[in-house]
């Protein structure tokens, strides 16, 4: 009797499955979205699913340990989701052939749609390119901007930062805004804070240096320009005249100190919530310019959606996956700050996508004109690890006896060994 019951249930399951399998194809997408972000993303997917009969997109969030899970899924062909979110660093996986090349299926995309590759900022799209193929559609390009606390500037009777500021103006203000407000001999308020964020690349690039040269053959960190940029950065980090110590940052929180009104200026991503902290009046401007070169280059954190090359649908119906990818990416472009598309790079579009950023929209768009992405290649993870643990870490944590130039020259061959 029991065996019959079990057999009946098995047959029912298979029949139901077969019937379900005849429905429109289900396309899965995995993201790192937490509860709130996943809920917002779901509204985009609901809208897409309601307007197509070709496919249904199902969100499978992996809010914890995302890349460990994704890597193990990608390493097991045929398992995992059809599409994934990837940040810029992990786009390096394209070199391992785990993402589907999109260049063919996107070739006939309508102009000024998410499938139109010519509409993306070239530097951001480059992160997704490898060996002549395109392996992801960018959905965000978030330039680093300067957030400032108007209240602290007003209290010190100082002018607000402007789009024309150089680092000289910045240093003067940061020093003047570092104060012992209660007169107990301890600093209570600092002009700035940094702890390897913002990334040092900004200062290398602004000074005219490069992290990696254009043809990926050299790591010229020991060039005079790169060294000057990094020395400037190190002079600001944990400098008691303008920044809190690493211990204070570790204990009180990095961004939290700005939100608590103890930091006057903070460099953050354009999408950060620092300009909507209750009780704070916060302004936003592009990062200051290097006074010698005039460069205002800023770092752009970016992320893309990729297609799992080993997903069964990628083998059976890549065009359908491409259509779904374009639809999802189009939806995200109307949600995230900042859309990586040139045609959407306006203050009006930004404010419409994220009304809470309306006041900062002009500054963000201005910053986007100078944003630059990391040069990603196959072994970038190795390069990144050496850069941070053996070069930048010892420098910023005072764990080396060598000067910036000496350590850069010493580490250069090791970094160049990782280049393609």
């Amino acid at each position, binding site marked *: 009797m029991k065996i019959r019951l079990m057999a009946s249930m*098995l047959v029912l*399951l*298979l029949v*139901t*499955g077969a019937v*379900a*399998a005849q*429905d429109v*194809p*289900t396309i*899965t997408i995995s993201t790192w979205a937490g509860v709130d972000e996943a809920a917002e993303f*779901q509204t985009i997917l*609901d809208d897409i*699913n309601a307007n197509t009969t070709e496919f*249904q997109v*199902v969100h*499978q969030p992996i809010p914890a340990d995302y*890349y*460990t899970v994704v*890597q*193990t899924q*990608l*390493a097991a062909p045929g398992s995992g989701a059809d599409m994934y979110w990837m940040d810029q660093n992990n786009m390096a*996986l394209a070199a*391992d*052939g*785990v993402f589907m090349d999109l260049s063919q299926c996107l070739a006939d995309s309508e102009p000024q749609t998410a499938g139109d590759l010519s509409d993306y900022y070239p530097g951001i799209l480059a992160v997704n390119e490898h060996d002549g193929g395109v392996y992801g559609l960018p959905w965000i390009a978030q330039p680093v901007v300067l957030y400032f606390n108007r209240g602290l500037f007003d209290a010190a009777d100082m002018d607000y930062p402007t789009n024309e500021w150089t680092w000289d103006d910045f240093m003067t203000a940061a020093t003047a805004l570092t104060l012992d407000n209660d007169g107990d001999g301890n600093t209570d308020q600092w002009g700035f804070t940094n702890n390897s964020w913002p990334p040092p690349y900004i200062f290398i690039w602004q000074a005219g240096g490069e992290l990696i040269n254009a043809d990926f053959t050299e790591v010229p960190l020991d060039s005079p320009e790169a060294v000057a940029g990094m020395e400037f950065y190190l002079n600001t980090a944990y400098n008691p005249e303008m920044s809190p110590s*690493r*211990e*204070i940052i*570790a*204990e009180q929180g990095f961004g939290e100190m700005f939100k608590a009104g103890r930091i006057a200026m903070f460099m953050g991503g354009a999408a950060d919530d620092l300009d909507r902290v209750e009780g704070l009046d916060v302004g936003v401007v592009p990062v200051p310019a290097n006074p010698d070169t005039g460069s205002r280059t800023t770092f752009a954190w970016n992320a893309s959606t990729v297609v799992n090359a080993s997903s069964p649908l990628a083998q059976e119906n890549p065009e359908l996956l491409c259509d779904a990818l374009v639809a999802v990416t189009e939806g995200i472009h109307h949600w995230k700050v900042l859309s990586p598309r040139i045609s959407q790079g306006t203050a009006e579009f930004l404010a419409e996508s994220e009304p809470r950023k309306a006041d900062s929209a002009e500054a963000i768009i201005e910053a986007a004109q100078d944003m630059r992405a990391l040069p990603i290649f196959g072994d970038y*993870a*190795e390069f990144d*690890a050496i850069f941070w*643990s*053996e070069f930048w*870490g*010892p420098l910023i*944590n005072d*764990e*080396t*006896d*060598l000067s910036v130039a000496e350590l850069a020259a*010493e580490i250069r061959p*090791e970094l160049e060994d990782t280049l393609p």
Partner: protein
Amino acid sequence: MTDPGALNTYLPTLIRYLLVMIGIGVIMVVVYRVQRALGVKQEAATGRTLVVPWIIGFVIFTVFTIGASFYLSFTEYNLFSAPEWVGLENYQDLFDVSAGTLESREQRSTDVLERRHQEIVRVEVGGGGFVFGAREHAFWRSMRLTLLYSFISVPLGLFGALGVALLLNQKVRFLSFWRVLYYMPAILPAVATALLWRWMFSQNGIINSLTAPIWQGFGWEAPRWFTDPALALPAFIIISLWGIFGANSVILLAGLKGIPQELYEAAAIDGAGSWAKFRHVTIPMLSPALFYNLVTGTIGALQVFEIAAFIQTPAAVGTFLNWLIYQEAFNLRNMGMASAMAWIMLLIILALTALIFRSSSAWVFYQGAREEAA
């Protein structure tokens, strides 16, 4: 909104589960039939057949993975490309160490160490000293932290647990309550306790607030437990003691309860005082439980993971070895190097465990073994 594709999404997995179950069932039937055909009795054949699923799981998920990890330690492997055989290169890189003599205390370690080597240990003697460095300095720093942590926290925890067990073995009121209270740390999630301790050890946390009269009295700054390289290890050891007191105390308490009262009575007749009873009755009779706690405590301390994942340490201190291996494998995708690190860690654990076992004949007293010998 109801997920429209849930069945479609999970059906292939469900079918695979069913196929695996059917496959195991078929293997079990074949194993049973073969045994019976060979003349094995029904009861024995049934028993062996029922063990088959476990053996299959053990071979696939334990034996194979251990073997694969050993093989991968001789390769360069990033999960996506085929492993590339590199022989002993990973091990050579890990053991690429150097040492130098410092002519003055101010001399830079980079002046005397090999190129690309970074300082691991600096020993200052008189006006000069010695410095030891390694190419894979993160590995050796982690090794130093993990071993120091184990060598200090395990004996301290053992003595502390013994003290607690002796207290709980007294005739005190609400004994069950105290036992539950002391065992509580052992059942709390490690992640929650790591976060709790991180908060308690913060500069304005409860520990610094309670000890403020002490350090303020000496005119010292408030301790920065996890950011000061000199204090990180003591802070981790304090955390570990809290956890292992409870679990170890319960085992030792069970051991204390098992000591026959007549041994104490005989000792008293011979004129033994409290210390003599403790030294010559309690400790020998409790030594198997102490031995067990020492072995499991040492292995556990060398494999610390959760607190390393949730409490950052200064770069100069390094991190715990298990966490470093995880980062090497899944952040850097250097599965080969991570496997080599894991095998070195395994050898260290085996060596220490073997050492403890070898020493046991000198200090562990097994009453049953003595009775058998007699």
